[in-house]
């Protein structure tokens, strides 16, 4: 890696590894952070970016390896530890207290107090106002955080990190919920911080953004660092190559079977947002048997919310859905599953699995009625179904009685898929089915999707991965801001058209694209 003068290395990670139960998130990573520069970190979902940053911020401790700060080895036992050494972080998931005011959030854990240890609210609000003004956000410091838009909350998070006066500032997808104008302001703040010699670590999926503001770039793939360069030496293609690698993703090939008749249709699905407006905005689409319809969209585009509406998880949703041309009038999830809908949720841990139960119990949880005579679960029938599903999906598990939490991410995902399949669905909704699982399991999941569609299942799958949606879908729908903004046949879809449709309603993307 070529080094340029003036940008000293302030923090260095040497041979860092991090192992969680079931997965290795980071493998032997070496990473340098330079002063007065924007150090970009990029990689696909689940590549290990966030884990690496949590290690720097002291939230997670590395399983192996060394951290050098200013050339001295350090170890952070908590995030407070890292903060005291001048490392601040803007988290991807917002770490704010909704029930406290903006000023209280900014000064949380380091409250300004007077001589009697009483919090000096006036001083806190005065200083908070200063930081917020820098961000031109129009947020009053005495407002409750839960009353703010998500984008504004993200700005508060940024203000909080800036207020730390950190030497190293980590930003994990800081723009994911910001409008174009807000992004511009953020970039101004970043330039300002850079000029003051702050080292910034910047994580984002948006390549144009990275190329525009980055000075150095590091690419992660499957927990390994695959490239490290100065930004001026690289272009988009280089980044994509490093991200995806030569062993490009193993998308199972289309087998050319023809989709059948319409199996599923939604009409005018709407879901009001708590903060006003619509999270899902009059979405109507139709799906044929044996068809894979990919729904592409950025974070917050309303894909997951659409699936939630279809499954009947939101009482306040409106619109109509039809299976095999007959309207589904049932409003609760249980009866919609009986009608032939099944969802594989995005968040495996929170919504997909009961992690303390066994693999077998998880697999049959949604379909127990199939194995019941009168009220008795026939153990034999259940075991047989479990064994068959384990074999069909090649779930790697020694004994189905094992707790599901002991499996790797990919195998856990297969359990969630198996659970949905055992209900005998006609329509399968898959929300980010490849999120956080390794390459081999991804290939298995994609192969399974192909096979299911061949067997006549209609599959709706949501993803924010462009390659995935291009490779797997028979048709591609694009969502942005809750609306359906594009619908392409596989043959006529281009990446440019899809990306353009996914940005509709967000204002134009700034910055020239270097190629």
């Amino acid at each position, binding site marked *: 890696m070529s080094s340029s003068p003036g940008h000293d290395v302030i923090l260095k990670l040497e041979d860092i590894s991090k192992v969680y139960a079931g997965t290795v998130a980071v493998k032997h990573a070496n990473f340098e952070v330079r002063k007065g520069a924007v150090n970009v970190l990029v990689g696909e979902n689940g590549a290990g970016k966030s884990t690496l940053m949590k290690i720097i911020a002291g939230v997670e401790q590395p399983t192996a390896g060394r951290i050098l700060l200013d050339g001295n080895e350090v170890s952070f036992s908590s995030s407070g530890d890292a903060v005291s050494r001048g490392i601040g972080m803007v988290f991807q998931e917002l770490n704010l207290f909704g029930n406290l005011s903006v000023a209280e959030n900014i000064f949380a854990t380091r409250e300004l107090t007077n001589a009697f240890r009483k919090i000096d609210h006036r001083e806190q609000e005065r200083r908070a106002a200063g930081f917020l003004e820098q961000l031109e956000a129009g947020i009053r410091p005495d407002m409750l955080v839960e009353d703010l838009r998500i984008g504004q909350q993200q700005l508060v998070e940024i203000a909080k990190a800036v207020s730390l006066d950190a030497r190293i500032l980590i930003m994990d997808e800081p723009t994911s919920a910001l409008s174009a104008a807000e992004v511009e302001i953020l970039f101004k703040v970043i330039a300002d911080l850079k000029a003051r010699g702050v080292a910034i670590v910047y994580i984002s999926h948006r390549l144009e953004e990275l190329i525009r503001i980055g000075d150095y770039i590091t690419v992660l793939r499957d927990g390994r660092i695959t490239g490290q360069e100065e930004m001026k030496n690289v272009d988009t293609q280089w980044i994509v190559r490093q991200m995806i690698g030569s062993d490009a993703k193993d998308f199972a090939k289309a087998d050319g079977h023809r989709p059948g008749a319409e199996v599923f249709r939604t009409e005018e699905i709407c879901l009001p947002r708590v903060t006003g407006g619509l999270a899902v905005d009059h979405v109507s689409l139709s799906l044929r048997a044996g068809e894979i319809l990919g729904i592409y969209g950025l974070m917050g585009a309303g894909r997951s919310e659409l699936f939630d509406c279809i499954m009947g998880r939101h009482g306040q949703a409106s619109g109509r859905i039809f299976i095999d041309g007959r309207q589904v009038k049932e409003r609760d999830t249980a009866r919609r599953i009986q009608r032939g809908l099944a969802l594989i949720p995005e968040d495996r841990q929170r919504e997909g699995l009961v992690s303390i*139960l066994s693999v077998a119990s998880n697999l049959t949880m949604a379909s127990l009625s199939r194995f019941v005579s009168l009220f008795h679960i026939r153990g034999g029938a259940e075991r047989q179904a479990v064994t068959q599903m384990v074999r069909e999906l090649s779930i790697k598990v020694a004994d189905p009685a094992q707790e599901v939490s002991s499996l790797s991410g990919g195998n856990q995902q297969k359990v969630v898929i198996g659970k949905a399949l055992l209900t005998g669905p006609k329509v399968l909704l898959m929300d980010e089915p490849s999120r956080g699982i390794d390459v081999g399991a991804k290939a298995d999941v994609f192969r399974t999707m192909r096979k299911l569609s061949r067997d006549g299942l209609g599959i709706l799958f949501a993803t924010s991965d462009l390659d995935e949606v291009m490779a797997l879908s028979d048709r591609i729908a694009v969502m942005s801001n809750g609306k359906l903004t594009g619908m392409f046949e596989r043959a006529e879809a281009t990446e440019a058209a899809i990306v353009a449709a996914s940005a509709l309603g967000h204002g134009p993307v700034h910055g020239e694209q270097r190629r």
Partner: protein
Amino acid sequence: MTDIPAKAAAPSASGGSVLLTLMKLRTFIALIAVLVFFSIAAPNFLSAANLILMAKHVALNAFLAMGMTFVIITGGIDLSVGSIVGLCGMVAGYLVLNGIDLQIGYTVYFNVVEIALITLGIGILIGAVNGLLITRLNVAPFIATLGTLYVARGLALLSSDGRTFPNLAGKPELGTTGFGYLGAGKLLGLPVSIWILVVVALGAAYLARYTPLGRHIFAVGGNERAARISGVRVNMVKMFVYMFSGFCAAIVGLIISSELMASHPATGESFELNAIAAAVLGGTSMSGGRGTIGGTIVGAFVIGILSDGLVMMGVSSFWQMVIKGLVIIVAVVVDQAQRRLQSRVTLLQMAKAG
């Protein structure tokens, strides 16, 4: 249980797994420990009469603890069971003595079976109220059942103006005799209440293991969101566990009134705490998703034998409370240690597997 087959585990892991097995059996070991200790320390402890008497004491707590176990597995808590015991006892006593005055010059008297059914119905009804508060009105289980704790106790006191209903022998000409059978009757040499316990416990254990409802109880407690998305009718499951808890409490109310042949409105005060203690001692996790009926019964026996044994040894009741508290705390500490050891062993196995 002593010898593990040679091929079962590598030498390094086997130390961990023996310890793990011991920890898993801790409630059982504790039960044997208290039995052995008291049979040495307290004379007459092992006599058949004493064992049967203790079993009758334990049965009362065991009923409540079973109901409590299901509730806790779903991630809830039921503080109202003690009051339901009191109220149901009063309902039964009132019906035996007074019947129901129809306000038109007639009074309807029920026979004992009908009285028992009505009383059980009242217990289930209060459980249903708990369930409705929790599922429909989104009241936290702790608060909802705290509320019914006071309401039910108040109603029990109101029913007699705070007095005891004495002498529930009933009158032959009204057909209300025989109420004492539940508390004093015997079947094949064992008290009726023990038989009822056996039946209800087997039923509950069967329900937990072999029925969809039982599975769903665990699923709701393990991850309510995932259960809902999987089509589990979460609200129905919750309704059931609170109604079952109320049912168990009503049984206890009936048995106590029958044993004493009198109903006292303060009966059952702080019973809910003993029930929680037995469930926790039996390995039920307060965070939901884990627990077994068998473990809870053993837990109830440990607590019951401990207090009866200490009484026989003449230990002051103040010390009994201290000891009971310590036992519960130790049980939970061991439980946590077991979880940690378990996850370490699992990680080791996974690391070895690759």
